[in-house]
Structure formats: C-alpha cells, structure tokens
C-alpha cells in the first residue's frame, strides 16, 4: 500500500491514502498502538449483522458505515481498514477526526467522551463539556497557571484495564476562538479555516503523549446567570453527568452499552467530580480569582 501519510493518535498508528491537511505532522508515539489503514472506498466490502441503524449511520457487529454530505466511510474491523469515498476535504477531516475515530475506538473497547485533558502536579484532569462550553480555554489557563501538560483538546478515548480507567492521548492541537486568544494572551499560529475566527495556538511542546489515569472530572457549563458557581458532584449524579458527555451519545449508548456502562462506572468511582458554571459574559478578574482558589484547593 502506498503510504501518503501516517499519523499517531489515540493509540492508533494511521496509514492513510488521504492527507490530513489541517493536522500537524507528528512523530509522537504511544507506548502501545494498533495500526489502522485508510483507503479509497471498495464496493465489494460487506459487513455483517446490523446492531444499530439511523439515517446516516449503520453499526454492524464487525464495522460501520457513515454517510454524510456526499461522503462515505466504511470501517472493516476485521482488517482494521477505514474505506473512504470523499468529495470535500473539510468534511472529511471533520468526520474522520471526530465521529469516525470515536466509533473505531469503540470497536477496540475505547469509550469516547467530549473532553479536554490536562496533567498538573501528576494529577490527570478531564474537562468535560459541550461545544462552546470553554473546555479549551480552561485547559489553556490551567496548563499555563500550573505548568501542566495537555493530552487532548476535545475528544478523549477511555480504556479500562485491570479496574483502572485510562485516558488515551489524542493529537497535539489546542484551538481557541479569537476572544479567548485575546483574553489569555495566547500566541496564535494559523486560523483553522479562513472563514472562521478560531486559531491553533502554539503549544505542541506541552503535549503529553502518554496514557494517564484521570483523578478529577470537571463538568463545564455555561449559563446566562452572572455569577460563577462551583459544586462537587457525587453519587449517581456523577454517573449521569458522565453519560451526558459521551461523544456521539446515541451511537455509543445503543451499540456499545455494556462497555460504556462498565467504563463510565469505573471512571465515576475513581474520580472526584466538580461542576463549574461559567457565565456567558466572564468577568476576567473574578474568573481568575475563583479558579485560582478552587485549583489551589483540589490540586
């Protein structure tokens, strides 16, 4: 096979016939990894029994198909090959580095969650939240205030081994919206796309390419209220909050329910959890002081 591009992330070494234009090339190597191949779509591939089906997705017991915006992905788990029919590079990357990789991970028993990850003072923290909740900004703030390292900006795969849940590193990117770049004084490198005011910020040297055992969960919410609120989350509420942060929730809940339950329950038991409610309009001084006092307590 002609290897146009190879990339390591989420414990996968990916050999692809398609280039990943917006991902920085990297030679980071995890201590253990599986090989995946990305190839041009082959009409002859057939998958077995359907276990979940929705408009654009079919999950089988040995792979899946996703069709979107004129594109088509087919994953053959037996041969670890992702077949792609592509007509739009931006959509290809948006799907490949999110839904596709998350679902491939699930076939390896890795459960995907919508989270950033940072290690500070040897503690691994997951910052969980929906798009726009401020995960990347908080990650950047913690990393710089406490001399920490990050292992994911947006998507984390969780793997349970010997009763411990590990978070797998993703890829060395932190992306911030322009307002956060300004507020945090980050040095921006390139816009992610010329029509969008979001930027890669230059922190590849702070990328930690190793799996970690998360100890603290931070659920980040935005609110129209004016004050910052922080509270500890315990018991079943912690589990429910975790479940709500599953990445591609419908798919994972339906097709990988047993594994999902096992991994999230173990993670819930091994972590302390907090909810931070962040006002949509941040008062920078109040925000900085509240965070400082909170992280000084928990780290």
């Amino acid at each position: 096979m002609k290897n146009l591009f190879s990339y390591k992330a989420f414990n996968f070494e990916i050999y692809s016939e398609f280039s990943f234009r917006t991902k920085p090339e990297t030679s980071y190597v995890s201590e253990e990894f599986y090989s995946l191949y990305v190839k041009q779509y082959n009409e002859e591939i057939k998958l077995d029994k359907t276990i979940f089906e929705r408009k654009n997705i079919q999950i089988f017991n040995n792979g899946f198909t996703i069709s979107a915006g004129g594109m088509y992905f087919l994953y053959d788990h037996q041969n670890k090959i992702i077949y792609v029919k592509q007509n739009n590079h931006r959509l290809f990357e948006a799907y490949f580095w999110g839904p596709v990789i998350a679902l491939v991970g699930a076939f390896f028993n890795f459960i995907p969650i919508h989270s950033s990850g940072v290690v500070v003072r040897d503690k691994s923290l997951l910052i969980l939240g929906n798009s726009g909740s401020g995960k990347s900004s908080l990650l950047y703030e913690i990393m710089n205030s406490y001399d920490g390292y990050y292992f994911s900006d947006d998507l984390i795969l969780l793997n349970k081994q010997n009763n411990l849940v590990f978070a797998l590193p993703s890829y060395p990117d932190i992306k911030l919206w322009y307002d956060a770049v300004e507020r945090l004084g980050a040095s921006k490198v390139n816009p992610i796309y010329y029509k969008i005011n979001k930027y890669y910020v230059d922190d590849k040297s702070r990328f930690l390419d190793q799996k970690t055992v998360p100890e603290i969960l931070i659920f980040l919410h935005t609110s129209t209220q004016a004050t910052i609120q922080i509270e500890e989350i315990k018991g079943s509420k912690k589990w429910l909050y975790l479940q709500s942060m599953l990445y591609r929730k419908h798919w994972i809940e339906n097709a990988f329910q047993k594994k999902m339950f096992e991994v999230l329950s173990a993670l819930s038991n091994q972590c302390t959890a907090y909810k931070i409610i962040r006002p949509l309009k941040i008062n920078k001084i109040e925000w900085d002081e509240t965070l400082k006092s909170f992280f000084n307590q928990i780290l």
Partner: protein
Amino acid sequence: MKNDTGIIWLASYPKSGNTWLRIFLSRILYNTQNINQLQIPIYSSKAFIELESEIDISELTIEELHQLRLDVFDEFAKNKIFPVKIHDSFKQYFYQYPFLPFSKTKIAIYLIRNPFDVVISFSRHLGLTIDETIELMNNEKFTMAANENKYQIQIPQHLGSWSNHVKSWTEQRLIPVYIVRYEDMIQNSYETFKNILNKCKIPFTEEKLTDAISFSSFTNLQKQEEKYGFEEKSVHSQKFFHTGKAYYYKNLLNLGQIQKIMKHHKEIITKFNYLPEYL
C-alpha cells in the same frame, strides 16, 4: 406529508410570547412538568444540530451549518408533529439554500405583540436603555448572535426592523401562517390557545387544554422560575417572567418614545390595532 406530522414554526420577534406558547405546547404534547425541560428547540440552536447530526459543528461555517440544519430538521419532522421556535425574519433563501425545510412545514404560528410593550421587555432582556432598544427595533440590519470572534451557541439570526419582521412572516405566501396577538393570549386565553391547537391539528381534550393553560399561566411560570430558575433568562435581567401584562407601557414610556415608535412602525401598529388611544 401526513396530517399529523411536520414542523409547526413558532415565529415571533423576541419578547412576544414565544416562550409562553412553547411551554403551553410542551405541556400539551409532552406533558412537561418543569419549564427547564422544554422539548421544543430554536431553529438556530447549534446544540440541537450537533446532537441530531452527530457531527462536530463548532468549526463549520454558517453556510455549512445551515445545510446541515436543513437535513436535521427535515429528518426530525418526518414522523411527528414538531414545533420549532424561530426569531429570524422570514426569507425564502439563506445563502443559496432554502431558508426552511419547506416540504416538511405544516404551519407557522406568528405571534405579534404591541411594540410599545416589546421595547420595554426587550430592553430589560438586552440590558439596553429604552432609547437604544427603540433604535434597534428600527434597524433593518439587526442580527442576533452575530459576533464572529467567539463561539456562538446559536446560528446568527437576522431580524431586521420590528415592522419588517411582522411583514416578512404575515405577508409571505410560501407557507400557511396563523397570526396570534399576545394580547389575545392574555385577555382570551381559552379561545386563543384552543384556536392554535385546532389550526395546528393537534388533538386535545378540554381537560388537557385547561391544564396546559393553567400550567403556562404567568403566575405559575413566575412560581416555577422562583423555585427552579429559568435557563433562558438573560444575564442582564433578574427574572425572565417579569410583568406578563398587556399595554403596561403606558406608565413606562414617555411621549417622545411613543412617538418615535409610531414614526417607524405606524402601518403595522394600525393594522394590528395597537394605536394608543390618545394619539
């Protein structure tokens, strides 16, 4: 499209009773118990599009997002009645695509409220002065969620001026529209809400209708907000359910402000019987 499926657009300029109608319909359709659990999304909600499309939407352009939402709303409305809140002014196209999934549209309920009350409520919501809000309601370019320097939880919504917002929905001929006055929802709740359900062909019993009217009554909404808070409350105001009355502007706007509103919106004010009696 079958009679019992399709999108019901709950369209209005902001602060014109849209939340009230959503709470009423949520109770009728889904037996909602808590005002923070409304199952009626706004058309501009990125979270809804992300949840239903299962793709990362945070780095898509507005045009790409719009293409995606057409698919999402089209699919979601396939087998059910699906009310959707919308504040955009009506247009046929957005970029080069249809603005709404027209083939899945059942009806639009257009809520109108006298602009003198709207201006007071909207100024509280936005944290602006009355005069600034009057200017905004005259502005043909007025667009919400338009700041492109930060992540916006909603797709930008072009509203334009208050008058043209009303005209855009009530004078278009592409989809059926039923016009409801906020003041009639207050003064004649039973008949007004009953007519809305009939127009939407939503089945109901008398018992269900009175229950939903009582659940969405202003007194109950204020109680619920006091007890649980309301997630849609603006950062600028103390509470969302503030006054809930008709024609309360008379003690709050001065003559100059009333005249300024009249100057820009006289045609629509007259058409919908909102002329102040002393002018």
